[in-house]
């Protein structure tokens, strides 16, 4: 088991290297650099910089160096000092910016993931065991609605409802009064009252998909001979189902961590913008638009790392859950 984990971690190293290369290439792809986009913004505002200043800035930011030198400066900083570079636009180190955002991103992601599981597990089991019952059809209908409604529409609707009928301040994860306040019980309550909207919106489509997956998998497993074996032992029906077929149908649940993590971080950018959430998605979007290369690159790299970590976690959990994987 330990060797298995070690092997997986070892395999991650070349993948990470490749990922950092691609991340850096992506941010180099658009023509121009941060200065050209800065200049055009300033030109729009009627400002102009003289040639000497531009050249000085270019040298200062290291933009006059060849691409591969820029890459090694960047990756070297990350590896040796944990320094992800400097955000031109925000005039702050990238790491400060990212860690700020990552906390809230992870918080919302994990809450959504837990909600996906908490809702889809019982409903999925119910739907598989009572297939073609009224309840199954009802959940199926709800599930398809959940899959079909775009997230941002749902976000807008919930925001409206919560403002109109509950009188809450909406958007963000804190009320304006609490944003800079130190942590307290009141702040926590305030956060929870804000969190439910993004969590529901983000979890919705994931839940619907997961219910369908679990229902299909479990339906297959329910007719397997080992279920009859368990019944023939004299095990009560609910224990039969929870202990044997559900256990095996859980594999896709665990695998889902791998893709849910990066998806939650980056995939809900539109929702995050609509809801004004201080998560990573909107920041990445702005960095890409403004060609704030170190910020964007670091974000893309981090997203890759998250994907890998998610895959690793799900692989390890799978191995714990299913001995057949452990032994291969």
């Amino acid at each position, binding site marked *: 088991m330990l060797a298995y984990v070690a092997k997986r971690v070892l395999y991650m190293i070349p993948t990470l290297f490749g990922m950092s290369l691609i991340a850096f290439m992506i941010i180099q792809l658009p023509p121009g650099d941060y200065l050209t986009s800065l200049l055009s913004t300033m030109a729009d505002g009627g400002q102009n910089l003289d040639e000497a200043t531009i050249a000085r800035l270019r040298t200062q930011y290291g933009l006059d160096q060849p691409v591969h030198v820029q890459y090694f400066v960047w990756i070297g900083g990350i590896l040796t000092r944990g320094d992800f570079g400097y955000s031109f636009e925000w005039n702050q180190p990238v790491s400060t910016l990212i860690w700020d955002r990552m906390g809230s991103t992870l918080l919302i992601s994990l809450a959504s993931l837990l909600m996906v599981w908490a809702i889809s597990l019982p409903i999925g089991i119910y739907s598989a065991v009572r297939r073609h019952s009224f309840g199954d059809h009802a959940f199926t209908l709800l599930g398809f609605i959940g899959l079909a409604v775009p997230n941002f529409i749902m976000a807008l609707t919930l925001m409206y409802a919560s403002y109109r009928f509950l009188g809450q301040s909406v958007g963000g994860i804190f009320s304006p009064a609490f944003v800079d306040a130190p942590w307290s019980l009141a702040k926590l309550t305030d956060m929870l009252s804000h969190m439910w909207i993004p969590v529901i919106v983000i979890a919705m489509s994931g839940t619907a998909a997961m219910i369908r997956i679990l229902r299909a998998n479990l339906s297959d497993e329910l007719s397997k001979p080992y279920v*009859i074996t368990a019944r023939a032992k004299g095990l009560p029906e609910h224990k039969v189902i929870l202990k044997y077929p559900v*256990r095996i149908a859980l594999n896709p649940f665990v695998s889902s961590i791998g893709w849910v993590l990066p998806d939650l971080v980056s995939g809900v950018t539109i929702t995050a913008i609509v809801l004004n959430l201080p998560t990573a998605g909107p920041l990445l979007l702005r960095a890409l638009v403004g060609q704030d290369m170190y910020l964007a690159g670091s974000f893309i790299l981090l997203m890759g790392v998250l994907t890998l970590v998610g895959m690793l976690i799900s692989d390890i959990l799978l191995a714990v859950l299913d001995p057949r994987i452990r032994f291969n």
Partner: protein
Amino acid sequence: MMKPNALLSVRNLSIDFHLRTHVLHAVRDVTFDLKRGKTMALVGESGSGKSVTARGLMRIIDKPGRMTGGQILLDGPDGPVDVAQFKEGSREVLGIRGGRIGLIFQEPMSSLSPVHTIGSQIVEAVRLHKRVSKKEARVRCIELLRQVEIPQPELMTDRYTFEFSGGMRQRAMIAMALACDPEVLIADEPTTALDVTTQAEILDLIKRLQDERGMAMLLITHDMGIVAEVADEVAVMRFGKIVEQGPVDDIFHASRHPYTRQLLDATVKLESGAAGRALPASLAPTVAPVLSIRNLTKIYGAPSRMFSRGSGRGLVAVDDANLDLFPGENLGIVGESGSGKTTLGRMILRIVEPTSGSVTYRADEAASPVDVTTLGKADLRRYHQDVRLIFQDPFASLNPRMTVKQIIGDPLVISKAMSGRAVEARVAELLGKVGLDPLAMERYPHAFSGGQRQRIGIARALALNPKVIVADEATSALDVSIRSQILDLLLDIQKQLHLSFVFISHDISVVRYFCDRVAVMHRGKVVEVGDAESIRTNPSQPYTKRLISSVPNPDPRNKRMLHRLRADQV
């Protein structure tokens, strides 16, 4: 009202399945008794309602099945209780399942959970019915594993099912069924998926445990040989009804119902060899073989570190095989699973590339021999028109989205031999040849039974007028009566078309019936080749002796397995 020594009395049991379009009476008015220490065999073909009856006794009936009437009287210290009266899933029924009635069934590969250890599954069964601590249950589990002759039970209890072979899993399954000392054991086709030698061992084991514990046993099988070897009483089931029941000797030697006789005849016929089939004249030494296999070897997994087993040179599936197939001859290849017989068959067609050795093909006497192993793509395609394959699984080997006409005509279209009307005429002719109505060619495979599908598969193999047919377990998935029909059909076609067959099977009686010569394979090696009759009556190799003596004999007066040779005796 109950006979004194009947432990379980089933009276007028009926089970219906409410399907979308109609009600299927799966079990109708079934009545029988199980007695302590005795074995009752429930015999019938697939779909006759045997398994549903057995599971009905434990009140495990899949939806949409429902018990519609009858009594299941289980004798106890306080007089008989009627299991049919209780609600499904009630405490009484749960106590009887596993506690008083144990169940083992066919699929040793999938009847145990793959994600729990063997031990934990048995311990669970023990603790469901006995108030014991986990530790005591574990001790009991190890003791059970020892009783079913699993070596090193202390170690094996913490292993997972996929680390066990098929026979071992069935042993573990038996241990689980016996965990709480049930009075009744239901064995539903317990050995159908196993090799003959393993089957003999498992049947021995079940018999021994039954004698030790005095259990009543309900044995469900389609194999009359097994019935003759182990049953005391027999009930023959057809279309959900018991058509005849009685002591085993009466059933075998004085059966009254025509269906019983039909079942027996089909079995005995296979036992006796194709009557009156003269050896083809081509077996004379002057005739050149149509296929010659020389030093054919297949090693799976090159000698790399990852796949090596034991010797460090890969898994040797076929080891230096030499065989000849003469024109008009039926050559049987028998062996247990993993003996390399399927790999050998596929190498003949070069579906699997041989590691070394040669396959030489001679289309007819005059033609010059070609080495199949070096053929180019175009030549190989021509070779595949002459040498064709019939598969085992009549359900999986026909594309469900193609009509019968498309399926059978496909080889004709691919080889560009015919098109349009000509294909249709040829398909009609072929369907007639395999005994199907040519009008059925527009239908899809799902409309046909297993036996009919196998006929379609045969028609497809015949489409291009082949010289040689490789039949890989072509009758294994079929019921006995259909099996002999298919074999007779193949023999008939052979006579008409002067074909040669390579007939691969684990079922020795089938091979004996169908083949002129038999090659016995064991662990990748061809251990013995000889004519079918002498292999059967006078095998020279120890492995062949063991194999032949493990085949159940369908005659209760002459039980063979009791005197069989075991691995440690040869």
